Every structure is written in structure tokens, then in C-alpha cells.
């Protein structure tokens, strides 16, 4: 099996020009782009990912410059999936972030063979923890720290729940960190590999963290749920884990699903089964060390 790291710089650029078949968990993205940030981002962050030789891709995506004079003056790029152009163009230097957001958009919009939730998922000892994302709650920071501390990353952004088995499927894609979180994780794990920072995006400054090789090698291993934890970072105080009612967890998860209502009854049954199998908690923390210790106890 070829992985991105097996390709020379030239070969990677050539494949990107034609369409690179990037395999990320259950999906194959055929990515076409001549933009250097896309090349650099894939080179550095997707090094361990397989290059699929399957003829069929799930999504054909492109990052390219829209027609017009902006090609030369403050050049911009846009994300395209077949005929969809979901976002306004971004500055060309944000091409890799545009690709990441576009890939998320494809999954949210087309992967209705899963129940998709806006949440991070990690695994320890064969059980998965689902971290739903309240914006600003520190979900990505915690996900990054856990993924560098023995927890296997399944996903940072979109949880894929199997409609038949209820298992959670990995994608193992890079973790999107914003603003202060970038420095926090750089301080936490000085050896961690980051992509180039994209400054002044609509989400502020963003940078992507390379997933661990183990997480990528196990991208086809689904996992049953163990816990749902709602993290919240506070600017003081010790860690506190408090049970959260399942009904309340269900409602929050349904509201934070990309396709709960699209799936109708199947969506309800899938989510109901998922939440029923999970221990549900609210979790408040100040330091990452506290948080990791708490999660260690949780995993037993």
C-alpha cells in the first residue's frame, strides 16, 4: 500500500495536479490542486495516510483559483466539490484550511449513510469517548492533548455513527486548533507536528495538528461508545466530573447533529441507542494535566 510519505515531492505534486486519492477512514477524497499550501499541508500532516488505488472516489474536490483578475492581485482560492462551491473564496495562503473545511462540508452534506455529529471522538481500551463541541469550550484543545497522551484519535470534528451497528468510525484527520490553543498544545507537546498557521481566517488563526501514526494506521477500526463528556474550560479551579442526564445529552447531541432530521426515525433510533450505551458527564477543568488525569481515571 502506498502512503503519502512514500511519494517524492515531485510525485505528490504530480498526483495532486491530476487528482490524489486520499483515503481517510471510510472516505476516499480525490483532491486536485496546484496550490503550494495544499501540497505542504498534505506532505506534513497526511504523511501516514494511504493513497487509494480504488477507481471510485467518494468526493472529487478541487482547490483552485476562481476566474478573474484576482489570480494575480491578492490571489484567492476556492473549494469545489463537483458542481458545489459552498464557500466564498479565501486568500490563496489559506488553501489548506479551505481544503479541510471543504472536506468536512462534503461529509456533513452527503454522508447520510452515517449519523453525523459535531463532536470529537477518541478511544482508550476499546471504548470511545464522544466530546460534543460547544464553541469555545476547549473541545479541540482537549482532543489534541488526549490524542498525544495515549488516546487514539478517531475524529476531531465529525463523529460518524454507523446506522446498523452503532459503532463510531474513525477518519483520523488532522486536528484543527484555533488561536491560543495552538500555543497551548505546542507548549504541551513541543515535538508535535503542526501545519502552517493560517492567520486572519473567519475563525481567527488556525493551525492543524498531525494525527499520531497509530491513529492513522488504525483508521479502519471502529469502536463502541463508552462515554459522552461535555468539556468546559474554566479560568480557575480543579477538575470536576458530574453526571449529566441522558435525555439532556440526547437533545444536545440531536441539535448538534448534521443530519439527525434528514435521517428521520433512523436518526432517532441510532442516537437513542448511542446515548443509552454511554455514561454521560459534564466536565470542567482548568489545566490540561488535571483533565488528562481525570480522563485516565474514567478509562479505568
Amino acid at each position, binding site marked *: 500500500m502506498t502512503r503519502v510519505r512514500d511519494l517524492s515531492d515531485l510525485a505528490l505534486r504530480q498526483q495532486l495536479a491530476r487528482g490524489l486519492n486520499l483515503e481517510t477512514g*471510510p472516505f*476516499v477524497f480525490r483532491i486536485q490542486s496546484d496550490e503550494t499550501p495544499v501540497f505542504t499541508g498534505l506532505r506534513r500532516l497526511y504523511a501516514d495516510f494511504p493513497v487509494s488505488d*480504488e*477507481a*471510485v*472516489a*467518494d468526493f*472529487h474536490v478541487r482547490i483552485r483559483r476562481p476566474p478573474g483578475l484576482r489570480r494575480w492581485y491578492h490571489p484567492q482560492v476556492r473549494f469545489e466539490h*463537483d*458542481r458545489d462551491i459552498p464557500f466564498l473564496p479565501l486568500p490563496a495562503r489559506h488553501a489548506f484550511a479551505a481544503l479541510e473545511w471543504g472536506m468536512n462540508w462534503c461529509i456533513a452534506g*452527503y*454522508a*447520510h*449513510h452515517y449519523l453525523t455529529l459535531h463532536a470529537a471522538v477518541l478511544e482508550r481500551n476499546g471504548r470511545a469517548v464522544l466530546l460534543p463541541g460547544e464553541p469555545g469550550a476547549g473541545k479541540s484543545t482537549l482532543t489534541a492533548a488526549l490524542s498525544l497522551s495515549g488516546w487514539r484519535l478517531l475524529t476531531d470534528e465529525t463523529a460518524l455513527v454507523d446506522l446498523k451497528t452503532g459503532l463510531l468510525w474513525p477518519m483520523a484527520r488532522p486536528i484543527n486548533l484555533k488561536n491560543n490553543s495552538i500555543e497551548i498544545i505546542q507548549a504541551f507537546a513541543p515535538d508535535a507536528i503542526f501545519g502552517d498557521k493560517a492567520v486572519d481566517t473567519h475563525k481567527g488563526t488556525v493551525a492543524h495538528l498531525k494525527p499520531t501514526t497509530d491513529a492513522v494506521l488504525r483508521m479502519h477500526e471502529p469502536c463502541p461508545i463508552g462515554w459522552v463528556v461535555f468539556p468546559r474550560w474554566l479560568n480557575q479551579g480543579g477538575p470536576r466530573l458530574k453526571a449529566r442526564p441522558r435525555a439532556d445529552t440526547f437533545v444536545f447531541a440531536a441539535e448538534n447533529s448534521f*443530519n439527525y*432530521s*434528514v*435521517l*428521520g426515525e*433512523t436518526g432517532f433510533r441510532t442516537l437513542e441507542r448511542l446515548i443509552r450505551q454511554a455514561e454521560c458527564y459534564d466536565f470542567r477543568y482548568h489545566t490540561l494535566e488535571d483533565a488528562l488525569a481525570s480522563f485516565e481515571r474514567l478509562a479505568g
Partner: protein
Amino acid sequence: MNAAFQRLLAVLKNAQDLAVLTPEDWDALLRHARSAGLLSRLALDARELQLWDAIPERVRRHMESALVIAERQIRAVTWEVHKVYEALGPLGFPIVLLKGAAYAMGNLPAARGRLFGDIDLLVPRDTLPEVELRLQFHGWHSNHKDAYDQRYYREWMHEIPPVTHISRGSTLDVHHNILPLTARLKPRADILREEIVPLPGYPNLYRLGDADLVLHSATHLFHEGEWAHGLRDLHDLYLLLIHFSTQPGFMDHLMERARRLDLIQPLGLALYFVHRLFGSWADPATTAVTILKLPGAVQRWAFMQGFAHAHPDFSETFTPAGLLYLYLRAHWLRMPLYLLIPHLLHKMGRKTPAKG
């Protein structure tokens, strides 16, 4: 026409072909069918013909996903029609559902695996104030506050400005005719109401008669300026024609209605292109086609560009010219030039163009 488009047509004509495609074929077909809005129909065909196992796993997943969306849309349309019925059912005149909502509520084959847009209704023109008021009481409000838009719709169009539901966000297009008042062809709405068919379970809700349904579908398609769903809409027509033409005398009746409603021209185009893209469905069609005026070479070429460009990646060098021709043709049919030119200039001069 390119190979990918030919392959899509081939499987729409004969779904058994789904079993013999190579993975390379599938890679192109999946994208093409998905952007044309036809993947869910192919998925239903594959299931019914028990070809599911012959299709690559990765493609099947997207077919499942497309079926989930199609089922969801049927639920959403049914619910929305129910709410419309609550609002307008008590009125003393028939409410006629058009297009997708009519296919769905009338259990017609064109509803099969279809994606729906807004809900379209037809009511008598003199009842519009009452209809609008009742819709407002039930939460549907116009989002076209602009004076130009209001005038555009109310003086020239065949519908009032679309209304959107304040909590559900669903949009209704309330029509009093099937073509703009300014259009070259002048179908009379009272003639359309002669043959309306009641919808089961909703007293006072109707759809157009079988022939008129075909005529409206054809009229809508061949007055359309945007061709994103051209192929899907033509396939709707194909399914409707197959379904209705099993009734004895249907094609003759269709001709008769087309004459009375001044819709000979769109019917001619519809029969020509259904025949050309999907093949003949029954003998009467052959005679019918000879009676009607057929499109000339330029029109044939331009419409084929419209149908084929369901996927922009498969666009040919002169496709944009063909699409521009269709866009201008649609506007020319909908409005005389002395109205059209100022209207297009007005649209160019602002950021969010009016519909039409």
C-alpha cells in the same frame, strides 16, 4: 456528446446496464448522477432489479445516502402540504398543487426518488388577496419587500412574490397561472382548472389533469433559464409519459389540450427530447411528433448542451454559449423586449437578483 453523459442516459433508459459498469465508469457516473439529482432514482432501479450486489460498495453507500435524502424530502413535502391544507383547505375554491408536490401527493412515478424544491400552488387570480392573507395568518410571509420585486411579480409574473414560513423556513410559490402574464404563449388558467384531479385524503386539494400535468412540466422546463436540473426534469416528463400513455387515447387528448392551452410549442420540444434522450415509449408518440413543430438545428444543439451540462466537469468548449442562448431564450419567451431589457439591467445593477 461525451461518453459520461451517454452512459448516464443509457442507465436511465435501461437500468439493467447498472450491473455491467466498470469501477471507472462508476466513478464518473456517481458524480454525474449525483449532480443531476438522479442518483436516488438509479438507486431505486438498482434495488428493484436486484442489481444491488453488482454495484461497488463505495457507490452503494452514496446511493443509500441519496435515498435517505429522497425519503426525507417526501416526508417534508407531505408535512408542508398538510400545513398548507390547514391554512387554505377551508377556502371555498380548489387549491391545485403543481410540480413536485403534485407528483408526491398524487403518487405519480415522477415523485420517485425526486428531490423537491419549493411547494407550488395554483389558485384563481381573483382569490389571491384572500389566499395571501390566510397564508400570513398561518406564518408565511413575503421576503421580497423591495418595491421593484413586488411590482415585478404582481404586474408581470404568474405568481405573487414567494412566501416563506416564519418558523419552518419552507417556501411557497403561489401561482395564478403557469406562465408569466407577459409571456408569448397564453395558456388560460380557467381551462387548466377544467380537468383537475382531487388528491386523496385532502378534500379541496387537487393536481392538474394527467395531460395538463405533462404540459405544465414541459412548459416549465422549456421556459427555464437555468439548466441545473434540466435532465432531471426531462426524466420526470419521460416517467409521466410512460405512465399516462398506457391509457387509451391519452396522446390524442394531450394534443387536444396542448392546442386549447396554447402549449403546442413546449409539448413539441418535450416529445422531441424525451424521444431523443430516452427513446420512444409508445407508438402514439411517433405520430404525435410528426404533427408538432420540431426544434431547428440551433435549438437542438443548445438544449442538448443544457441537458448534458448536468455536470460542469463534462462541459464542452461551446457549452457556455449554448447555456447563454437558453438563458436569453427563456427570458425572451417570458417577456417582450421593451420590458426584458430594463429588467435585465435592473438585475445586473444589484447584488441579489430577483427570481426570473
